[in-house]
């Protein structure tokens, strides 16, 4: 949340656009993870925000207790949650997919399992670390972009998010495994018929989603110092909203959606902070009514 009141009136539009883009870059990483999970494995992971919070806690622990540079902890948090993602997919979601007779049943059961996971992760974190808000204050000093001042960590996290997004995009778009992932997203049965190991694809895409979630969680932790075990829900909602704006399975759509949400959220925080949350929900509801497939969705 930027400082309010001091610069309003001069260059506000530029400020909102740059600030929104910086916030949007981080949100795009949040959303892309969920998009990969939902688009490819067809499981709506409502416990996504909780995995993001796990990432934040990993950064907090390694910074606070071992004094490791917060940017280096990103690697650790990514690795740990990638493994966690594999475990979750194998232990919980794989069986759900296999034993459900219809898509509707799978939706119901995965929703139910996600409620359970939300309870488990939130209370495990609260039990181990308590409910005191955590945060890693890092690079808090200001930096000037086109005459507007922003916190350095916002800029650093935005650049990193764009880089990570680019790497994931290249992986999905230009490698053979990425092709298999896209094929599975389009038509799981057909993909299996032409010899794609669907199980492996699901495993990797679910873990990649967790990986993106944890990285964005670690970065959120650098910017805001008010994260508790219970603040994951907000990020789940942000990711869901961007997922719908961008369209399911649309990587670049998610990035564009993240920019829209980032700008409107940042602008509302500036002018009327109390309305920041309702406005993004209203954007979501309006988009769902006008274009149920999302602003950039196909079909």
């Amino acid at each position, binding site marked *: 949340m930027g400082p309010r009141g001091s610069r309003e009136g001069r260059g506000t539009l530029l400020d909102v656009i740059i600030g929104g883009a910086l916030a949007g870059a981080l949100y795009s990483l949040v959303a892309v993870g969920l998009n990969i999970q*939902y688009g490819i494995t067809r499981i*709506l992971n409502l416990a996504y925000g909780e995995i993001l919070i796990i990432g934040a806690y990993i950064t907090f622990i390694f910074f606070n207790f071992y004094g490791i540079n917060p940017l280096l902890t990103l690697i650790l948090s990514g690795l740990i949650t990638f493994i966690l993602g594999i475990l979750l997919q194998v232990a*919980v979601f794989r*069986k*759900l997919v296999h*034993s*459900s007779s219809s*898509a*509707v*049943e799978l*939706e*119901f*059961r*995965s*929703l*139910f*399992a996600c*409620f*359970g*996971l*939300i*309870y*488990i*992760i*939130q*209370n*495990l974190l*609260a*039990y181990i670390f308590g409910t005191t808000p955590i945060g890693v204050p890092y690079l808090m000093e200001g930096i000037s972009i086109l005459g507007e001042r922003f916190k350095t960590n916002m800029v650093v996290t935005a650049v990193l998010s764009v880089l990570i997004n680019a790497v994931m995009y290249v992986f999905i778009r230009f490698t053979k495994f990425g092709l298999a992932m896209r094929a599975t997203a389009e038509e799981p049965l057909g993909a299996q018929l032409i010899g794609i190991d669907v199980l492996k694809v699901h495993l990797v895409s679910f873990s990649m989603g967790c990986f993106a979630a944890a990285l964005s969680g670690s970065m959120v932790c650098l910017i805001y110092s008010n994260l508790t075990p219970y603040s994951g*829900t907000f990020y789940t*909602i942000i990711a*869901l*909203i961007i997922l*719908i704006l961008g369209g399911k399975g649309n990587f670049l759509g998610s990035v564009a959606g993240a920019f829209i949400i980032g700008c409107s959220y940042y602008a509302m925080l500036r002018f009327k902070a*109390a*309305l920041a*949350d*309702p406005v993004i*929900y*209203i954007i*979501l*509801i309006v988009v*769902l*009514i006008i274009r*149920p497939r999302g602003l950039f969705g196909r079909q």
Partner: protein
Amino acid sequence: MSKSREKALSLKGYNLISFAVLAIIVTFFLLAPLFLETYYLSVLRNSLLFAALTISWFFFSGTTKYVSLGSAAFFGTGLYFTALYLEQSVLNKHLTILPLPVIMLMAGLLNFAIAFVVGLISLRLKGMYFAIATFALGEACRGIFNYAISDFMETHYTYIPPFSSEITYYTITVTAFTIFMLIFVLYRSKLGLALRAIGENEEAAAHLGVNTSLVKTFGFAISAMCIGFMGSCYVTIFTVTSPDIAFDFQFSFLPPMMAMFGGIGSFYAPLVGAVILSLLREFLGVTLVHHFLLILGIIIVLIAEFMPEGVVNFLKRWLMIKFRIRKRTF
């Protein structure tokens, strides 16, 4: 068609055991304040509250398989309308003081109207998109109420004249049982049949002449109305409330969770599931605060994995196999 409806509503086809059990339960709940302490009354009251919320959720989402995660929106609207009316009718001379049931009825009808409009718009969405839209609706309502209350009322809280614990208990009990009966009748009516048909296969239902969008909207509105009634009578337990309490998203998450815990195949299963889970929440939640929710989470994941039909249906099937019962007893 009227003949089959008569049959559905008639008392034939129910054996005496069901009636005896029902009579005992109703008598127990009505006489409970005579022999139970206040704490146990509040436990009973809360379990009835959640049972009514669950069955209202089940009436639309369990039958049509359109998962609504927006119960909190309707619960909160009902609760907040009642709270504001009670507060303003004391403070403001122009507003007449009305008895609680009349305000509750108004709150329910308001919810019916809101849900009808929301349903007309949002029920075009399918599957998870509907779930996300309704969830956003609940959260948006919370934000807007928070903003409106703190901006126009110049305070974050709304004060409610206190009610005695007996009045609270009886308000919630009577409303909950009314909702059970209403939904039981509706579930077995033509509307309920149409809703279940939509849940099985929406296109086939449309081909058989069901006006699916109208039926869905009506079902959604009735479900929201019942949730609004419960929200409205829940106001009696508070002396002060705020939008964060009224629109708490546990009211969105718990009804579907309790319904799926019991199983969404029949009318009784979600009801029993809700009572079991809320009693567990009340008793174990006090003694083991963090552990309990952790254990609950593990239990829920295990049920999702191994008992997709829900605990109640699972137990029923297990008992039937164990004792070789062929006929359905209830």
